[in-house]
């Protein structure tokens, strides 16, 4: 098969590994404000990028990174680019703030971007974004583009003129094959994104970066939005502590099990 022209859609999110205290909720503005943590690529998107790079290594081709958002970090994107992608396409617009854009609107903007860029054989996305965990954008995008989609990939391979994908199920996996162009949403089982070298990051500055605009794409995210955020509150956490008293560890264990059953935790 000829070289694959791949597109990986990546989302910039506040580092999900930050401590709970790093996520401050502004109820009034209905926003989560990250404190003291950097933006990162949503981890599943990193997996998608890793999958794409591996395919490129095996079969040649190119990897384009596409990110839509507001206040996108060049550093984060360059690092992603440096991992082994070939070019970067950004749509950075306040209207695309991740707090404003719902899945539908995101997919619509991405679809417009993909149409505008044109010519991709394979589109990869993360299975879901680390901030919303909705998992809708990839499939929505495929729908809008009218191409087949395979979710939850744990392995993506080229097979003949198409692809073969192992898709994670709760108790195993299913194998799908699809013709190209197609879209795959990638799961973490694919493996972590490799670490670029410092040299690669610095050199990535010389790789092509394109900027798209909403007007250029002729898409209005506001009119595509279907979701209304009514309120945003941090989950209330309540801790009640009960000491299990017993004479021996064995007895305490047994008592604890009973209690857990009583509370319907087990």
């Amino acid at each position, binding site marked *: 098969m000829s070289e694959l022209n791949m597109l990986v859609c990546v989302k910039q999110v506040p580092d999900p590994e930050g401590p709970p205290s790093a996520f401050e909720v502004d109820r009034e503005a209905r926003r989560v404000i990250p*404190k003291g943590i950097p933006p990162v690529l949503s981890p599943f998107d990193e997996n998608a990028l890793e999958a794409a790079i591996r395919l490129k290594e095996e079969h040649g081709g190119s990897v384009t990174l596409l990110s839509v958002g507001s*206040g996108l970090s060049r550093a984060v994107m360059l690092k992603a680019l440096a991992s082994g992608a070939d070019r970067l396409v950004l749509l950075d617009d306040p209207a695309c703030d991740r707090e404003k854009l719902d899945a539908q609107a995101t997919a619509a903007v991405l679809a417009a971007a993909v149409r505008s860029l044109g010519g991709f054989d394979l589109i990869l996305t993360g299975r879901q974004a680390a901030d919303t965990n909705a998992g809708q954008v990839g499939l929505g995008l495929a729908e809008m583009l009218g191409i087949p989609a395979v979710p939850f990939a744990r392995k993506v391979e080229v097979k003949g003129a198409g692809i073969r994908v192992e898709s994670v199920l709760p108790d195993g996996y299913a194998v799908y094959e699809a013709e190209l162009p197609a879209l795959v949403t990638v799961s973490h089982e694919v493996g972590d994104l490799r670490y670029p070298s410092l040299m690669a990051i610095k050199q990535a500055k010389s790789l092509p970066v394109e900027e798209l605009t909403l007007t250029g794409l002729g898409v209005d995210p506001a009119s595509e939005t279907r979701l209304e955020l009514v309120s945003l509150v941090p989950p209330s956490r309540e801790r009640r502590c009960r000491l299990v008293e017993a004479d021996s560890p064995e007895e305490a264990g047994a008592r604890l099990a009973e209690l857990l059953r009583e509370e319907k935790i087990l």
Partner: protein
Amino acid sequence: MALQDYLRDMEGCSRCSSCKWVPFNQVKSWRFAKNCPSVTRHNLHAFSGSGKMIMGLSMVSGRSELNDTVTEIIYRCQLCGACDTACKVYRDDIDLMDVLLALRAHCVEQGQLIPEHMLTIDALKREDNVFGEPKARRGDWAEGLDVKDAVGEKPQVLFHAGCRYSYDPDLRETVRGAVRLLRSAGVDLGIAGADEACCGGRAFELGYQGESENFADDMVSRVKATGASVLVTACSDCYAAFNYLYPRMGKELGVELYHITQYLEKLAGEGRLRLRQRVPKLVTWHDPCHLGRKSEPFTGEWKGDKLLRPVTMKRTGKKGVYDAPRNVLKSIPGIELVEMERIKGYAWCCGAGGGVLEAFPEFAAWTAAERIEEALATGAEALVTSCPWCLRIFRDAVEETGALLEVYDLTELALVSAGEGVLAGGAAR
């Protein structure tokens, strides 16, 4: 606190430029009067403590934007804190150091990231150390030492080596010597080995304060798990993290904390450490920033008008660890201590801190070379310090510049004096 929360501090700057100089009482010469590596090297006002605050003010006021140039200026700074000490001679209502930290957190939150620092953070997340070396090999340095496994053997004293001592092969003998020294004084000592992790201080200074908190939480639980009642660290960076940053983040280690110089002073005072062998040397002492002004204990956060803040809650740099290492040095027979001009709360930085070594190594080396010159100006044969980061960069600088100066860790000299070692030529490697 976010950058805009420091608005009053930033707009409180009168631009007097005291932040660029050693506190004026202590200016002793033309040559060594400046205190800030950043503005001394780069000259534009923006590089000074004041300049960085004004840039912050400018951005918060919507007059300018954070971009790569501004980010680089913010990070071309060791966060050594000398500006903060100098500023506080005159001001009660500006916490310059906090503004510098907030600026970095702001950069990180805005995704204005320095690539080298991103890698450091990746390394930390992946391997629990700033170098990205394998976690499993963290304890290798202690191989064959007579020391307890802190995990399970319940030592009284937990020895925390820190990332640099754990992985820097050139410093391996130094840290092993420190342990031998403590053991020779009969200290019931344990190390966590592969279970030790980074203190997270570096992440904090790079602006990744959230990531840093994860490490603090982790450290607290690990220390508790060992059951040790005393924590001794040979690393000044870690000491400052434990003594200042952790309380600032609301984390309690729940142990008695010592920097090794303090612990040696205590042991010597109790007669457990006997420094009897003569070490005939004219030496000068370099106060590591993190052992000195930056380790000053956290005394609570003052809410409201800082002009009314009690002096006891103002960080002035005076309460760092300055006397302990000097006392130990002086107790070594044969050692003669000559002071450099910039010492204690107004000491010139070694150059390695604040992520400069990682991102701007040539600037770090220049800063170290400045200090070497200052040390040479005292006529001393040796520069002594007690921080692996300082030690490393000074040894590199001496090698680079060919300066005739030996560089020692305090424990190296103490070890010799305790009759447990010998000095191996120039730099005791």
